[in-house]
């Protein structure tokens, strides 16, 4: 047993593209301690989305090992994976991904539906979480009636309600203006302060700066910490190329 919430060793993943295989992750090693708040940065095509999907058990990997909360996640069945996601993980997405015909409260309560919590109790809990995020007055509104920042707060409440060990956030501020981004980051920081580990995938240096640690991904590999300039240089090259 270790105090790591996530332990990834020599992780490989390639996609079958018909004739050829696309090698996306080429041996990733990550160790995230419980309570850590980590950001993953990298240009598009660096493999960060793939990594996030694997960490979120939304996708499987080819070789290496991935321990979540000291449990080996390896070629899980879909049903088992679903249970794992439900119990250990909370997701926050760039595009919020709320269900459009359910109101804020119902959206927040949904993970508990899949845990078999009865309606009354889960709605009550959902209201508590909405209150914590300052959205109690908006509980009966549909997502379309909320602003971007409000929607993201609903999504955060939904990620929190199942009391996960780890929150995976995929560009959580990507669709928000800078002021709202700051508010959302404030919330995420306070969530992390309550003891929930957090991984934020982002390409905004300002967001990454507010996390404890930045993992830079380039071309399917982690850029060692000792060479920040090289990484920056290469990313500049990559950005100016097209």
């Amino acid at each position, binding site marked *: 047993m270790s105090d790591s919430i996530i332990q990834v060793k020599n992780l490989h993943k390639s996609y079958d593209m018909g004739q050829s295989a696309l090698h996306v992750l080429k041996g990733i090693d990550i160790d995230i301690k419980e309570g850590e708040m980590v950001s993953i940065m990298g240009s598009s095509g660096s493999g960060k*989305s793939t990594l996030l*999907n694997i960490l*979120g058990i*939304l*996708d499987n990997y080819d070789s290496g090992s991935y321990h979540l909360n000291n449990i080996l996640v390896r070629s899980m069945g*879909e*049903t088992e994976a*679903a*249970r794992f*996601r*439900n*119990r250990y993980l909370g*997701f926050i*997405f760039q*595009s919020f*991904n*709320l*269900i*459009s*015909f*359910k109101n804020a409260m119902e959206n927040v309560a*949904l*993970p508990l*539906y*899949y*845990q078999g919590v*009865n*309606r009354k109790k889960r709605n009550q809990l959902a209201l508590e979480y909405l209150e914590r995020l300052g959205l109690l007055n908006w509980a009966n509104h549909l997502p379309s009636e909320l602003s971007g920042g409000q929607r993201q707060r609903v999504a955060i409440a*939904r990620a929190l309600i*199942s009391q996960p060990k780890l929150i995976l956030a995929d560009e959580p501020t990507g669709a928000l203006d800078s002021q709202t981004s700051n508010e959302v980051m404030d919330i995420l920081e306070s969530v992390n302060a309550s003891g929930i580990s957090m991984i934020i995938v982002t390409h905004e240096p300002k967001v990454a700066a507010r996390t404890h640690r930045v993992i830079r991904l380039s071309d399917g590999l982690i850029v060692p910490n000792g060479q920040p300039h090289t990484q920056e240089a290469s990313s500049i090259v990559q950005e100016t190329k097209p």
Partner: protein
Amino acid sequence: MIDYLQEILTTLQKNRLRAIMTGFSVAWGIFMLILLLGSGSGLQNGMENNFKGTSKNALWIWSGNTQVAHGGLKAGRRIQFTDADMKALEKTFADDIDHVSGRFHLWGNAAVTYQKEYGNFSLEGVMPDFKHIQTVEMKEGRYINEPDIRDFRKVALMSVAVQKALFKEETPLGKYIRVGGVPFMVVGTFENPSNKDEKQLYLPLSTIRKVFNGSNKLGEMAVSTNALTVAENKRIEEGIRSTLAQRHHVAPDDKQALGIWNTLEHFKQAQGIFAGIRLFVWVIGIMTILAGIVGVSNIMIILVKERTKEIGIRKAIGATPWSVIRLVLSESVFITTIAGFIGLVAGMGLLAIVSNVLKGMAAQGNDIERQFFNPSADWGVAISALVILVLAGLIAGYIPARRAAAIKPIEALHDE
């Protein structure tokens, strides 16, 4: 469970019009199936009403004039049955025949009177066994029995219609009526289930022949066989025909001289036709429902495609593949069951109304009950229709559900 329904209902509410349109095809299919089945059973009931009251394996035997010359005798000869024929049949076919009765009709001017009331009714001399061949429903009193025959008792049995004509509300039992001037005591009343208005009197065969100079003549004969199959009954029919043909020197294929109505054969023929109709109705009904299923399936596939993102979200936050399958399947079953139930109730309701109208017509003495009567689809049919509906819903939802379960959350969530 309530949660579960709530989940289904909220999504259906969101697409109310589509759900209704989809359901309509299924409701229509079931409605038509029930209607068709009801019509089939109505026709069948009408047919069976024609056979009601007569033993299903009865043979009715009558004689006429010979059509062809045979055995040196010329055509046009009148054939007359006598007691000897009946005795011969009883003896020759002892193993095949359960009951035999000679029949003697009193034709024409034998008026039946009671005090000042009188009328002309069908009068027939029969034997006690006749009650097993032409079954009637006894209302009061008794049937003709052996002592009546042996002692030439002057007793009579009348149908309710005759009783109403002669006695009005009075009870006829023990009272005397006059048949052609001769007094007969009424010992029973009956009703012919296949023809409630039949104005018929039964008298003991021996008495009627003695009183009205019938000597040993028989007008017709009726037997009921112990045959279980048409072939067996046919064999007995042929045996009887050849025996009688021999006795009367008639060509065996002269159907004018010797007529035999084989009830079982005709009953089975009619039944066969109706079994065919029923099969046909089921096939058409199932095809109609199938069209409904394809419609539901189609809509569900579109629905799943539209909800790809939602299903992806559900999966990301912990929906198991089974719960996704269940979500789609139960919606499909829900639509088909509710819609089908509406169609079922509408169909059954319409049949009940039609059935009542027909009963009213039959009560007014209309002959409708012999053609089309009680067109109901019974509970067995209704339940099998419901089972078909649920199955239909499952089948309709299966392919869409499989698609939904196969949705990868990653792709679904990137699908903007």
